[in-house]
C-alpha cells in the first residue's frame, strides 16, 4: 500500500494518475548469481545444448586468440578480446530466434559471428577498412557500437517498433559494466520499462572498464539491482557458466516475447586479457587476480561437466578442435589479403544523394587519385625503362 491508497481523516482516495505502482520484491535479483554447472541442476541440462555450447565456446576461444594474433601482425587495427567471456557472448547469440535482433557493443564480435555473420565482415571495424562490414538486416545484428551504451536506446526503439507493427521480435542488447554508468543506459532502461518493449539487456560485468574496477564504477549491491529502479526484473547469473547464462537469457527472451516487458541480466564474468591489444593491464591489476579467475574459466567449467557426464569423447574433442582451427585458418588467410578499397566510397553514403559541396569534394579527390595513378605509372615506367615500350 502506498500513501496514495491510504484513507483517513485528511486523505481521500488515490488519484488514478499514480497507478500503477508495483511490488518491488519480484524485481529484485537473487542475492547469489544463478549457476548450473557444479550444482545438482547440471544433471538436467540437455546434452545437445551442452555439446553445442562447448563447441561454440572452444571455437570462440580460438577466434579470440587468432584475432589478437592478427593485431600483432598488423592485420587488425585493434582487437578487444572476449577471452574469458565466451559463455556470455555465445549464449547471447544462441538464445535468439532468427527474427530477433542483437545489439552488440564493440567487444561483442564473438556474439556477432555466433549469430551467423561472416567473421571477416564482423571484424571490418577493427580491421579498419570500413565502419561496419555486414548488412545489419541480413542477420538482424546492429552495427558494433563504439560509443558506450548508445546502442541500448536503439534496441528499445527497434523492439518497440516491432511490437507496434505486431511482429513477434525481441531485441537483446549487450553492454559492459562500465557502460551502465552512462546516461543512455538509464534512459534506455526507463523507456523500455515504460513502453514494455521486448528487450533483454545483458550486462557483461567483466570487472573492468579499461583500468577502472567495478568498485569505482558503482556502489550498488549488484548491477542487476538497477532493474528495480525501472520496474523491470533484474537477474544475476554466473557469466562463466554457459548453461546458466543460456538458461537465464532464454527465460528473459521468453518473458519479453510474451509481452512481459524488458529484463536486465547481469552476467558476472571476467576479462582475462587486457582491454585491447593496445592496453597494458599490468598497470592496474595483478597476476594473482587473473590467475584466480583462470580457475573459473568458462571453457574449463563446461568441459568438466561434459567429461563428468561422459559427453565429450576424443572424437568430439577432435571435431571441435578442427572446426576451431578451420575458422582460425580462414580468418588468417582472408585477413592476410589486403582489402580492395575504393576511396570514392567515402562520398557514396553520407547522404542518399551527395550534397553539392560533397560532389565538389568528390571531384577533387577523383582528380587527385588520377594524378596519383599517373605519377605511379610514371614511376613504374622509369623504374623499368625497358618496359616503357611494352
Amino acid at each position, binding site marked *: 500500500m502506498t500513501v496514495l491508497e491510504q484513507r483517513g481523516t485528511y486523505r481521500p482516495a488515490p488519484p488514478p494518475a499514480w497507478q500503477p505502482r508495483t511490488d518491488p520484491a519480484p524485481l529484485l535479483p537473487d542475492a547469489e548469481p544463478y549457476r548450473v554447472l557444479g550444482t545438482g541442476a547440471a544433471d538436467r541440462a540437455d546434452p545437445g545444448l551442452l555439446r553445442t555450447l562447448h563447441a561454440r565456446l572452444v571455437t570462440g576461444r580460438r577466434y579470440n586468440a587468432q584475432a589478437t594474433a592478427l593485431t600483432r601482425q598488423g592485420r587488425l587495427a585493434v582487437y578487444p578480446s572476449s577471452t574469458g567471456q565466451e559463455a556470455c557472448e555465445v549464449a547471447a547469440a544462441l538464445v535468439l530466434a532468427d527474427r530477433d535482433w542483437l545489439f552488440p557493443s564493440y567487444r561483442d564480435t564473438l556474439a556477432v559471428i555466433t549469430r551467423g555473420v561472416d567473421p571477416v565482415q564482423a571484424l571490418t571495424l577493427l580491421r579498419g577498412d570500413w565502419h*561496419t562490414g555486414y548488412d*545489419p538486416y541480413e542477420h538482424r545484428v546492429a552495427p558494433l557500437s563504439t560509443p558506450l551504451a548508445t546502442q*541500448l*536506446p536503439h534496441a528499445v*526503439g*527497434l523492439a*518497440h517498433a516491432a511490437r507496434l507493427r505486431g511482429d513477434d521480435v525481441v531485441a537483446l542488447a549487450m553492454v559492459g559494466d562500465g557502460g551502465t554508468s552512462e546516461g543512455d543506459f538509464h534512459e534506455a532502461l526507463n523507456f523500455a520499462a*515504460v513502453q514494455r518493449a521486448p528487450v533483454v539487456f545483458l550486462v557483461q560485468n567483466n570487472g573492468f572498464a579499461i583500468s577502472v574496477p567495478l568498485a569505482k564504477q558503482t556502489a550498488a549491491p549488484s548491477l542487476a539491482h538497477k532493474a528495480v529502479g525501472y520496474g523491470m526484473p533484474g537477474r544475476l547469473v554466473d557469466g562463466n557458466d554457459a548453461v546458466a547464462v543460456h538458461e537465464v537469457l532464454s527465460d528473459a527472451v521468453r518473458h519479453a516475447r510474451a509481452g512481459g516487458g524488458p529484463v536486465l541480466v547481469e552476467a558476472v564474468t571476467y576479462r582475462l586479457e587486457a582491454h585491447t591489444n593496445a592496453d597494458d593491464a599490468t598497470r592496474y591489476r595483478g597476476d594473482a587476480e587473473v590467475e584466480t579467475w583462470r580457475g573459473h574459466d568458462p571453457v574449463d567449467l563446461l568441459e568438466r561437466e561434459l567429461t563428468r557426464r561422459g559427453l565429450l569423447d576424443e572424437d568430439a574433442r577432435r571435431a571441435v578442435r578442427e572446426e576451431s582451427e578451420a575458422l582460425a585458418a580462414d580468418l588468417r588467410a582472408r585477413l592476410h589479403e589486403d582489402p580492395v578499397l575504393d576511396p570514392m566510397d567515402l562520398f557514396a*553514403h553520407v547522404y542518399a544523394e551527395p550534397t553539392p559541396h560533397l560532389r565538389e569534394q568528390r571531384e577533387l579527390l577523383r582528380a587527385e587519385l588520377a594524378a596519383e595513378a599517373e605519377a605511379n605509372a610514371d614511376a613504374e615506367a622509369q623504374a623499368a625503362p625497358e618496359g616503357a615500350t611494352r
Partner: protein
Amino acid sequence: MTTATAAGAATAARPATLAQALTRALRDAMAADPAVHVLGEDVGALGGVFRVTDGLAAEFGEDRCTDTPLAEAGILGTAVGMAMYGLRPVVEMQFDAFAYPAFEQLVSHVARMRNRTRGAMPLPLTIRIPYGGGIGGVEHHSDSSEAYYMATPGLHVVTPATVADAYGLLRAAIASDDPVVFLEPKRLYWSKDAWDPEEPTPVEPVGRAVVRRPGRSATLVTYGPSLPVCLEAAEAARAEGWDLEVVDLRSLVPFDDETVCASVRRTGRAVVVHESGSFGGPGGEIAARVTERCFHHLEAPVLRVAGLDIPYPPPMLERHHLPGVDRVLDAVGRLQWEAES
C-alpha cells in the same frame, strides 16, 4: 494526398499560422504513411508546448503520437531504433537547448548510420527543433543552434520562414530518407499568411534557396527568423536608394550555392543575416563560400549581421541581441558604395 476531412470541402486560401501549417504537414504525413510516428515530450494530450502536434494523438492514437519519458537522448535514441525497423519517426525537441542532451545520439549515430553501413541502414528521421529567440523566453529557451548541426556531415538542416514552406519543407523532411534537423523559428510560429490548407503547397525538394525579393544593389542572404527582418530592411532601404535582393536559404545543408552566387554575382555585394552568433556561426561559412566563388564580382567584402557572441540574453535585453532592421541597414551602408562613384 488529402485527408478525409478535406474531401469535398470548398477550398480557398485564408490566413493560417506557421504553426498550423506544421500541424497540417504532420497530419497529412501521418495519414499518408502509417510508418510516420511522432514522439517527444508533451506531444500527446497537450499537443506540444507550441501546439504543433495538437490533435494528432486524438486522431491517430497514442501509439502514433507518443508522450515519452523526459529524456532527450532516450527520445532520439529510441527513434533511431524505430527508424532501423522501418518507421519514419518525427521527433520533437521541446526547445533548442533541450536538444543538447541528445547531441551524442545525433552526431555519433543519426548522422553516421547510413555511411557506417554503406547505405544498408538509412535513418529516415525528422528532428523538429523550435529555435531562436524573440519570444521573451528565459534562459535556454532561445538558442540558435544551427552552427552545431551544419558542422555535422550526414545531417540535412532545413528551416522554413513562411507558412507555405513550413508545410512544404516539413513534408519533404519527413519524406527524406536521410535524417533532417528541422529548425522551426519560434517567433514565426504565430506569423500568418494566406494559405490554402486544403490545397497545400507541393512538397519542396530540400536544398533549394529562393529569391524572396528581387533587387539589384546588394543581396541579403538569410533564413528562418531573420527573413521578415530582411524583407523589412529591404523596404526601408528603398528610401536610401538601395534596391536589395533577399535570398531565403531554406536549407543550410544542402547549401544552394547556385542561387546564392547567381544573386551575388548580379548585385556584387552581400550581407548575411542571421540570429545565431556571428563567431563560428553559419555566416562565416556562407561568407567564405560566396567569396571563394564570386571574388571578382564582389565590390566589398561579404558582411555579416548576426546575434552577439554572448549567451542568449534575458528577455528584457534580447532586443539588443537580435539583428534588427537598423543593423542590417548599417551593414548595407558599409558595403563600400563610394567605390561605385
